[in-house]
């Protein structure tokens, strides 16, 4: 007796594992550049964060009695850990990475039922939880200290930065967004403070302070375009997000340049590109249709600008993504495609006179 299946009897060669692998591949250039830029402490933190995510995922799977090996091999925990690491201050102490992994996997992902079930982006839940709980550690930025350069910490110093939490004061720096915000609160207009931040070319190339993986806009863009080309993501989310942030920032900048930073500043600062191509494009927590993804991206962009501009935190990408995550079901509901042979409201199309030639 031949076993019976039902159609279709053939299948795409694509798998979840391959998809995750492609996203990880797309992250490699930006990650390698930033590990070079921020040196050994960043590398230590990166390894600790990714490894912790995998270990926490395994622990959760054991507790939940779910299959361990195939779930770990799907690559989703690695990707969460990777994205989380990229959103941390590069010289943050090791326990930030470990706690972040616990927040991301044991709080935001597995309790909902594991891959595909979580409502909120695990990496962003972790980042926000860490930021609220440990504001100092999460906002301690450093200037670039490229590997092999004179100012780069050696192995011993790097070890003490990551595992003993000893960051030399002289090495710390503010991020551009943080600097502008602090100056504004001291009464110095944006138009003045903006002169102190690295110029746009440096910001685009990534030679600036910032989170572990967010600084090189060009490399992130390259990774993102690679994902679009491989049809892992569509252009809708990044265009919506970047469009949203640039349009509203430029509009307000035009109205009051002293109070509001320009569109290009917002575009090149913080996590705009990382968020647009790698965070807001997370399948699980974003809407499923293309129109929905555009709306979602735009919402993320607008909210990021609002938080950066009016709220207490200098960067708002993580908050914006989480807020939009909560709107995902509603966006999904209102952005279903039109059905074949029906109008937008679901009624059968009328037979038009023009149909008869």
């Amino acid at each position, binding site marked *: 007796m*031949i076993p*019976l299946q039902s*159609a279709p*009897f053939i299948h*795409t060669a694509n798998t979840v594992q391959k998809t995750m692998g492609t996203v990880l591949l797309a992250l490699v250039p930006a990650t390698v550049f930033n590990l070079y830029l921020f040196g050994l402490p960043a590398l230590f933190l990166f390894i600790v964060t990714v490894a912790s995510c995998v270990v926490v995922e395994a622990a959760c799977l054991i507790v939940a009695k779910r299959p361990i090996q195939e779930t770990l091999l799907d690559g989703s925990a690695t990707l969460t850990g990777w994205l989380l690491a990229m959103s941390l201050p590069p010289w943050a102490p090791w326990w930030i990475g470990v706690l972040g992994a616990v927040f991301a996997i044991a709080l935001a992902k597995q309790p909902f039922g594991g891959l595909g*079930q979580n409502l909120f982006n695990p990496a962003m839940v972790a980042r926000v939880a860490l930021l609220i709980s440990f504001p100092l550690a999460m906002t301690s930025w450093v200037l670039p200290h490229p590997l092999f350069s004179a100012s780069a910490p050696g192995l011993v110093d790097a070890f003490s930065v990551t595992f003993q939490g000893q960051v030399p004061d002289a090495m710390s720096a503010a991020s551009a967004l943080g600097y502008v915000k602090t100056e504004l609160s001291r009464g110095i207009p944006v138009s003045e403070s903006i002169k102190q931040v690295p110029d746009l070319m440096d910001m685009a190339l990534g030679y600036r302070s910032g989170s572990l993986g967010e600084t090189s806009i060009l490399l992130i863009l390259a990774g993102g375009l690679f994902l679009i080309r491989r049809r892992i993501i569509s252009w809708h989310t990044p265009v919506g997000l970047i469009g949203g942030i640039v349009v509203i920032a430029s509009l307000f900048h035009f109205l009051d340049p002293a109070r509001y930073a320009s569109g290009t500043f917002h575009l090149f600062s913080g996590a705009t590109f990382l968020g647009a191509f790698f965070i807001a494009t997370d399948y699980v927590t974003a809407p499923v249709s293309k129109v929905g993804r555009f709306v979602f991206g735009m919402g993320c962009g607008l909210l990021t600008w609002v938080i950066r501009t009016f709220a207490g935190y200098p960067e708002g990408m993580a908050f914006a993504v989480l807020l939009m995550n909560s709107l995902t079901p509603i966006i999904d509901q209102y952005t279903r495609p039109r*059905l*074949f*042979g029906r109008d937008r409201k679901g009624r059968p199309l*009328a037979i038009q006179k023009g149909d008869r030639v």
Partner: protein
Amino acid sequence: MKLFPTRGGVHPQQRKDRTREQGITPLPMPEWLYIPLQQHVGSPAKVLVTPGDRVLKGQMIARCDGTISAAHHAPTSGTVETISDVTAPHPSGLSQTMIVIHSDGKDEWADLPPPLSDSADLAVIRSRVSDSGVVGMGGAVFPAAVKLDLGLRYKIDTLVLNGAECEPYVTCDDRIMREYSEEVIHGAQIIARVLGATRIVVGIEDNKPEAIEAMRRAATPHSEVQIFPVPAEYPMGYGHDLILAITGRETPVGKRTAEIGAVAYNVGTARAVDHAVRLGRPLISRVVTVAGGAIREPKNVEVPIGARVIDLVSFCGGFSESPACIVSGGPMMGQPLPSLETPVVKGASAVLALSAAEMAAKKEGPCIRCGACIDACPCGLVPVEMAALIRRENLKAAEKIGVADCIGCGSCSWVCPSHIPLVRYFHYANGQMGSQERDRRKNEYIRTLVEAHTQRMEKLAAAKRAAQAAKKAPARREEVTS
């Protein structure tokens, strides 16, 4: 000509290379033929023969029963051995009534009806097609003659001839268009005349350049026939999609394509119509692609209806490896066959013996909401959402977002990186809702019966009371008067 955009679609590996250059070869007449009474949409045919009867090739052995039905004919000469229940070519493995014919090896033709001229009366052509047992051979198996009547009710301007053949592996229509292009075009002209259509557009996927070329050559003398290459994208051969791509007209849900002025016929069906009208020959054979990784020598075979799958497989050199699945039809929408003993029916475009490696079947994983199923769906459905609802048995909600509009093309299942059998959920939901609807109607009917009964009883009781009252009434009156 301009191509109109269609929605969704997927690009599975074509895998047509092993058979596309294999010319159509006839299957040696098998000793036994099994002709199911129902090979088509509609009611089963009515048997005209009894066991022991000698039948001749092309003789009608079962006739149409009802408006939507199709006749069947003896594929060769021989004796009716029995009329009994044999395993049907259907995944259920249920048995079905079949006429079993033992071939006498003479292949002797019956007296066929006379050829009809191109200018024959339309009603005569219609009844000829009906008497010849022609059904849609692209897989829909809708009686062809019934569709010809559409011209009486609707104004049809375009006949779309479907040579898309979007299913992987299958090359039978490709071969028919290459080898019998003139028969196909003549058949199409007959159909167009009956329908009242003034133009014929042949839609052929651009992965069949030789077929496009052959059809172009055959169409050259006929100005009303246009050959229209369409992009190779599954499910381009879905009638509504092809009509949309060619004419830009979108068939409203619940309507026939005829209502927007276009009707689609498969190229194989057109050839069968040509045979019926020009030669008086009924549909007693069809071209079947025998392919798949487990078939030793894949071929395109002209198979008498009723030959068993095992006859085809052995004609094609048998299995080179143990097949993981035997499919009747294409790999995207075909039916799994429960046994090699099942017969080839009029709608079977292919018999595929697939190897495990080709099927690439994997364990179902969790949905990651990638949305690939939405981009793939030609109907604009949201498979991810419908499947989630159906999994929770929330069929009403799934119905609200359109599960009944699913055409079952399987693109969503094909594209899913988590290998979730999405289309199976929709078949299940539509089946459930169908049976719920039947139950509801049945209950409704029972309720009306019960109500009618109660009413009748009440009426009787009322009449009885009235009679009693009438009896008592005079007595009472007397009391009053006294």
